[in-house]
C-alpha cells in the first residue's frame, strides 16, 4: 500500500480537511484547519482539491517514513523541516522518494504547520469530512490524533516543475495581533465602560488554549446578565464567563453554550490567533459586519491574484 508510516506523531498532529458542515443538528462541531490560509496554500502549491486532507502539525515533533514516491508541501508555522536529515524549505513543493524520512521539528515562528501531499491523504470522511475532533472521537484515522505506527495512505504522484510561494508573500506570525471583532450577541449587555475597557486594553494568550477555545487573560469585563438560556455559538465568538476573562471560541467549540458573548472575531484573525504562543499579546478592534464582509473578499482576491512561481 502507498502512503506514509508515522514514526513519531509529535505533540498534536491531526488530519484536517476544510471542516464538517451541516452536522450541528447532531451536536457535531465544525473542526477544520485553524489557519485556513496556510492550509489553502499547502494544497494549492500541489494543485490539490481545495478541501484535500492534510496534516495540521501543532507545535512539532513529527517523523514520517515514505512508502511511496510523491511530492509534499509544508506551509504555516516556521519549523525546521528535514528529509533524510537534509534541510528542506517550506512554502514550496518537494519531491519524496520511497524510503525517505521526513521530520518536522518544533515551531520557531507560529504554532501550526500544514503538511499536504500531492492528491491529498486518502482518509474516509465521516459526516462529510475527514477532520479530526479528538473530543468527539470523530474523523481522522480512528477519531484521534496521530499515533506512532499509524499509516497515512495516498496515491503515487510526481511533479515535473516545482512551485513555491515567494518570500514576500509568506506570512510571519510573531507574538502579537489585533483581532477584529464584529459586535453581536449580548453586546448590548456590556455597558460603555466595559466595552471601552475591552477594546482598549491588551490581553495575553494563556496556556489553557486549544482547538476548542483560546483563553485570554487581562482586564476583567462584566455584563449585566445573570443567567441566560443556552444558544448556538458561531466561529470566533468571544465568551465572557463570570470571571470576566474572554475566551475566543475556535473550530472545535461546543455548538451551544450559556455564557454571554460580546461579539465574534473574524475568520482572518482567528487564523492569526491560532498561530500565537502562550504569553503573546492581543488587542481587539470593533468593525461592522459589512466591513468584515469586504475584508473577506479583499483577502480572497489577494489570494487569487498571488500566484505561485517556479521554484
Amino acid at each position, binding site marked *: 500500500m502507498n502512503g506514509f508510516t508515522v514514526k513519531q506523531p509529535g505533540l498534536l498532529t491531526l488530519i484536517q480537511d476544510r471542516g464538517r*458542515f451541516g452536522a450541528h*443538528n*447532531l*451536536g457535531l462541531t465544525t473542526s477544520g484547519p485553524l489557519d485556513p490560509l496556510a492550509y489553502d496554500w499547502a494544497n494549492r502549491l500541489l494543485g490539490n482539491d481545495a478541501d484535500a486532507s492534510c496534516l495540521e502539525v501543532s507545535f512539532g515533533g513529527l517523523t514520517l517514513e515514505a512508502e511511496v514516491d510523491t511530492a509534499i508541501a509544508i506551509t504555516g508555522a516556521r519549523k525546521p523541516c528535514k528529509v533524510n536529515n537534509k534541510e528542506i524549505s517550506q512554502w514550496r513543493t518537494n519531491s519524496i522518494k520511497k524510503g525517505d524520512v521526513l521530520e518536522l521539528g518544533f515551531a520557531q515562528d507560529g504554532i501550526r504547520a500544514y503538511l499536504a501531499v500531492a492528491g491529498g491523504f486518502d482518509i474516509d470522511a465521516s459526516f462529510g469530512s475527514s477532520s479530526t475532533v479528538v*473530543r468527539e472521537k470523530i474523523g481522522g484515522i480512528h477519531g484521534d490524533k496521530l499515533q506512532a505506527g499509524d499509516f497515512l495512505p495516498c496515491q503515487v504522484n510526481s511533479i515535473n516543475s516545482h512551485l513555491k510561494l515567494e518570500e514576500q508573500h509568506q506570512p510571519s506570525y510573531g507574538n502579537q495581533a489585533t483581532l477584529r471583532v464584529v459586535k*453581536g450577541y449580548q453586546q448590548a449587555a456590556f455597558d460603555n465602560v466595559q466595552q471601552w475597557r475591552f477594546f482598549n486594553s491588551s490581553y495575553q494568550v494563556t496556556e489553557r488554549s486549544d482547538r476548542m477555545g483560546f483563553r485570554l487573560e487581562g482586564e476583567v469585563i462584566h455584563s449585566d446578565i445573570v443567567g441566560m438560556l443556552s444558544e448556538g455559538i458561531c466561529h470566533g465568538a468571544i465568551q465572557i464567563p463570570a470571571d470576566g476573562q474572554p475566551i475566543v471560541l475556535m473550530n472545535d467549540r461546543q*455548538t451551544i*453554550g450559556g455564557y454571554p458573548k460580546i461579539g*465574534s472575531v473574524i475568520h482572518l484573525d482567528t487564523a492569526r490567533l491560532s498561530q500565537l504562543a502562550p504569553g503573546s499579546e492581543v488587542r481587539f478592534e470593533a468593525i461592522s459586519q*459589512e466591513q468584515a464582509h469586504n475584508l473577506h473578499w479583499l483577502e480572497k482576491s489577494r489570494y487569487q491574484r498571488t500566484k505561485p512561481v517556479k521554484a
Partner: protein
Amino acid sequence: MAMSIEVAGQDAFIVYFSEQASPQVSSQIQAAVANINAQMAGIIVDMVPSYASLLVIFDLNKTDPFAVRHGLKQAMVGLDAESSGSGELITLPVYYSEESGPDLHVIAECGNISIDQVIEIHQQQEYRVYAIGFAPGFAFLGQLDERIAAPRLSTPREKVPRGAVAIADRQTAVYPSQSPGGWNLIGLCPTRMFNPEQQPTMPVKVGDRIRFEAIDRHRFLELGGEL
C-alpha cells in the same frame, strides 16, 4: 419580547424568539428552520436551534449579510406554532434502580419524596427535545417536574456511563457516550443516542417528544444494555 434578528458574527445571525423556553416557542423555531431550509437552501451552511433562539450560519462566498437578513425576515413571516406539528413521539426504555442510578436517593431527598415516586414522576410526562449540543447526540429535554428537579453535582463525575439517564435543574437527558458529567444519574437507557454507524445517527431530533418507560434489569440486558 418581539422576535429579533441579531448579528452573531461575520457569517452568522441569531434569531431570538422569546425570553423563555416553551413548547410553543420551540414549535415556532422548528417552523423557522423548515422555512429557511425551503427558501434559503444553498447559502446556509449550518443552523443551531436552541431553547428560544436559532443560530444561522451563512456561506460568505455565496451571499452577503444584507441578503441573509432580508431572507431571514421573509422566513419569519407567518410562523404558525400550531400548524408546524409537534414532532415525533419516541419512547425510551429506562432501567431505574439504585444500581443503575446512583443519585436516585439524592433526588428523593431533595424533593422529600420516595425513590419510587421519583421513578414514577419521571415517567409521567412527555418531554420535548429543546436542543442538541454539548456533545454529539446530547439532547436537552424539558421541562422536568419541579418535584424531581435538582442542581448539578458540585464536583462533576469523571466518568458517566453511556446511556445514563440524568437530571439537572428542570432538564433531563440520556448521555450519548461515556464522558465526564455533573448531572444526577437516575437510571440507564439501552437505546444508543448517538451511533455514527447507524442510520439515522440519532433516534431523536429537536422538536420531538420523548416518553420514558421503566424496564427491569433482565429486559435492560436483553436490549443490549451494559452494567
